[in-house]
C-alpha cells in the first residue's frame, strides 16, 4: 500500500532525495489521480458565475498577476521596451488599472527590460536553461541562468529535462533544479526567484504532473509552472488544479508555501476567472496575490482591459481602445 502522503512526506522528506531509489519510491507513493474526477471537478469550478463587484475585483487581481510575455525569435529591444511600458501602465486611458506582475523575456533582453522598467514595481522574469526544450548540457543551462541573473533578472523560469523525467531519472532532474537554484544566487547573497516549468503537455499524465510538482518543490522551487507556451497543449484547468493541490499539500507537510503559474493558452477574461475561482476554492486567500499566483500570458491582458472598461463605463469598447504591442 502506498503510504499516507502528508505524514510520509514529513517523515520521508529529508531522505526522499537521498538516492534515485528513495526519490522514486517517494514520488510513486503519492496518491494517484483519477483523471475523470479531476476533470469534472475543474469543469464544475468553471461554472461559477462571477459578476459585478466580484468580477471587478477578479479583473484587477488578474491584471496584477500577469507575467506579460514575449518569447519570439523576432523580439527586439524596441518590442521589449514597448511591452515594458504596457506592463507599467496597461491602460493609457485609466491610471487606476494596476500594473502587471512582471514581464517575461529571453535572457538577452533582460538588460533592456531592466532599464525600461527602472523605478517601477514590475519584475523582470527571464526564461533560461535552454528554454523551451531544455535540450542542452548542464553547464550551458547554468551559464544561461547566471547571465540572466547578472543582467538583472528578478525571476528565472527554468524548464525541466522532460526526457530525464519520463525515463525515470528523477534524481537527475532534482539535482538540475538544485543547480539552477544555486545559479540564481547573486553576489550580494540574495537570489532570483526560481519558477520551474514542467511542460505538462509533454508529461501527459496527471500522475506525472503531481510527481513533477513534488519533485520541484523538494528541490527548492519558489514557483511551479505548467508550460512554456511553445507546445500543442499548454495550461489547462485540470493540470493547474493538480499544481494547486500539490502546493496546498506541500505547505501542509512542510510549512513552505510555493507559488503556481499556469502559462500558455489563457486568453480571455472568462478563462482567467476560472483559474482564480480554482485558486480561491482550492487554496483560498493565502495564494490570491501576485506573490503566489501568476498567469503566463500575452493576449490575456487586452481582454481583461476591455472587460474592465466595460465594467467602469457600462459599454464595450473594442480592440482599438486597447494598445497593440
Amino acid at each position, binding site marked *: *500500500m502506498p503510504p499516507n502522503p502528508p505524514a510520509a512526506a514529513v517523515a520521508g522528506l529529508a531522505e526522499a532525495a537521498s538516492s534515485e531509489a528513495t526519490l522514486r519510491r517517494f514520488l510513486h507513493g503519492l496518491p494517484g489521480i483519477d483523471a475523470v*474526477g479531476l476533470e469534472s471537478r475543474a469543469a464544475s469550478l468553471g461554472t461559477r458565475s462571477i459578476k459585478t463587484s466580484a468580477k471587478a475585483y477578479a479583473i484587477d487581481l488578474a491584471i496584477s498577476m500577469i507575467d506579460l510575455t514575449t518569447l519570439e525569435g523576432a523580439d527586439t529591444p524596441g518590442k521589449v521596451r514597448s511591452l515594458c511600458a504596457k506592463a507599467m501602465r496597461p491602460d493609457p486611458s485609466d491610471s487606476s488599472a494596476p500594473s502587471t506582475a512582471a514581464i517575461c523575456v529571453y535572457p538577452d533582453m533582460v538588460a533592456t527590460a531592466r532599464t525600461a522598467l527602472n523605478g517601477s514595481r514590475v519584475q523582470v522574469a527571464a526564461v533560461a536553461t535552454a528554454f523551451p526544450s531544455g535540450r542542452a548540457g548542464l553547464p550551458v543551462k547554468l551559464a544561461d541562468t547566471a547571465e540572466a541573473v547578472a543582467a538583472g533578472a528578478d525571476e528565472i523560469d527554468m524548464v525541466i529535462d522532460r526526457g530525464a523525467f519520463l525515463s525515470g531519472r528523477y534524481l537527475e532532474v532534482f539535482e538540475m533544479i538544485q543547480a539552477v537554484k544555486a545559479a540564481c544566487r547573486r553576489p550580494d547573497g540574495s537570489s532570483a526567484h526560481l519558477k520551474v516549468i514542467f511542460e505538462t503537455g509533454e508529461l501527459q499524465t496527471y500522475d506525472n504532473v503531481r510527481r513533477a510538482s513534488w519533485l520541484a518543490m523538494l528541490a527548492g522551487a519558489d514557483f511551479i509552472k505548467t508550460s512554456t507556451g511553445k507546445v500543442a497543449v499548454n495550461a489547462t484547468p485540470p493540470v493547474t488544479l493538480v499544481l494547486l493541490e500539490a502546493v496546498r499539500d506541500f505547505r501542509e507537510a512542510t510549512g513552505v508555501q510555493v507559488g503556481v503559474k499556469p502559462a500558455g493558452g489563457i486568453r480571455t477574461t472568462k478563462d482567467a476567472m476560472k483559474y482564480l475561482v480554482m485558486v480561491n476554492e482550492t487554496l483560498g486567500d493565502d495564494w490570491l496575490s501576485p506573490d503566489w499566483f501568476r498567469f503566463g500570458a500575452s493576449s490575456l491582458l487586452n481582454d481583461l482591459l476591455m472587460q474592465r472598461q466595460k465594467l467602469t463605463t457600462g459599454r464595450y469598447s473594442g480592440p482599438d481602445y486597447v494598445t497593440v504591442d
Partner: protein
Amino acid sequence: MATPKTSTKTGKKTAAAAVEAPRAATSGRKLFEYAPAPESRAAAGEIAGSYGHYINGEFVESTGKETLTTVDPSTEQALAEIAQGTAKDVDRAVAAAREAFTSWSALPGAERGKYLFRIARIIQERSRELAVLESIDNGKPIRETRDFDLPMVAAHFFYYAGWADKLEFAGYGPNPRPVGVAAQVIPWNFPLMMLAWKIAPALATGNTVVLKPAETTPLTALRFAEICRQAGLPRGVVNIVTGDGRTGAALTGHPGVDKVAFTGSTDVGRAIARTLAGSRTKLSLELGGKAANIVFDDAPIDQAVEGIVNGIFFNQGHVCCAGSRLLVQESVHDEVMDALRRRMATLRIGDPLDKNTDVGAINSAAQLARIRELTDAGEAEGAERWSPACELPTTGYWFAPTVFTGVSATHRIAREEIFGPVLSVLTFRTPEEAVAKANNTPYGLSAGVWTEKGSRILWMASRLKAGVVWSNTFNKFDPTSPFGGYKESGYGREGGRHGLEAYLNV
C-alpha cells in the same frame, strides 16, 4: 465559506457596484467574495394561483373541494394551490388512459417515437424555464437543475424515443406487447427527472399513464402536461392527478390499472405491495437506500473527497442512492476527514436560484424535522457531529451539511435513511470487512468503491449487494444504464434496455 443569499432580486449590474470592489477586499472578509448571481425568477414562466388535474388532454377542476399548498422551501412562501385528487378524479384519469390505450398501443413504434422525440426537444427548448421552476418548487440549486436534472430529463426521453421502433430487438421476443394502463407515483427529490424515468419508457412501449407527482413538488409535472399538449400527444396518453398519499393510494389500488410503478419510501412501497399482493397488477418499486461509499487507502484522495461530497451533499442529500455511509480504511481516516472538512468549508449554502449555490433548501418542514430527529439521535448515541461554519437563511427550511464521525454500526444514523445532507463515517481494516459492513443494511440500492487497484474494484463489485456500484465516481447516471435495488430498496429496473421490461407483458 458558505455565503447565504437571501435576496432573490435580479440586481442590475451597475458601474457603482463595480468600483466598490477593491474596498471589499480590505474589510476583513474573504478576499474573493462572489457577488450574488441570481437566475431570474421570472424565467419560470407564470405560476397560476391554483391548479386542477390534467386528464384526457385537458386541465380540469378536481371533483373534490380540498386543496393543498405548494411552497417555495427556501422562503416558505406559497406558490400555488393544488387539487387533492379524489377517488373520482383517479377514476376519470384511469378511464381516460384506458380509452387512449387502444389507439396509442396500436400506433407503429416509429410514430410513438416521433412524439417522444418531440417532447424531448421541447424540454430542451424550455429547459431554462423548467429548471427555474424546479428550483423554486423543490429548493434545489439552479446549478443542479440546469446542469443535471434537465439534461437528464431530455436524455431520458431521447433514449426511450429511440427504443420505440426497436422493441422487437430488445430481447423480449418478437413484437412484445405493452402492459396497459400504468399508475405511476413519484417522489419530490427529482420531480421532473422521476417523471421522465417513469413516462418515457411507458410511452415508448405503448402504455398509457396516470402519474401522481409528490404534493410538495407538483409544478413541473403540471408544466409537463402543457408540453404534452404542445407536442400534440393524443388525449389520455398522459394524465396527471395531484394530491398527497391518499390520492396515491387510490391510484395504486385502482382496479383499472395494469401496472404500478412507485418511487419513494420503503414504508409506502411495502403498503403498495401488500395492496397488490395476489392481484394481476405488475409492480416495480424503487425505494430507500443507505449506500456505502468505500474509500481504500490507495484511493485517489482528492477525487474521493469530491465523490464523498457529491455523494451526500448533491441535492441536499435528498437522493435515494446517496452515499450516506462513508466507510473509510482506518489508515487514511484522519487524512480523508481533514480533506473532507476543508472541502465542506467551501460549500456555498443559500438561495437556490443563485448560480453559485452548491447546497439549497430542504424540501419541506416535515423532511427537516425528520433530519433533525435523526441527527439529534446521532448525537445522543455518542457520535461526534461537525458542520462547517455557515450562516443559514432565517426563513425557509435549511440544514447545514453535517458529518458524524465515531459512528458505530448500531447507531440509528448508520442504519436508517436520513434523506438529508448528513454523512455517517465508519471505518474498516480489510476489504472483507468493508464488504461485510457495506452489505450490513436492509437496503441495497448503490455503493461506491474508491481504489486505484483495478482488480480490487472488480472483487468488491462482485460482492457488494447493491443495484449500482460506482467505482472512483459517485452519483453518475445515464439513461442507458439500468438503476434499481436489492432487498428493501425495491425491485425492477429503470433505465436502459432493462427499463423496458417493467412496461412490457413479458
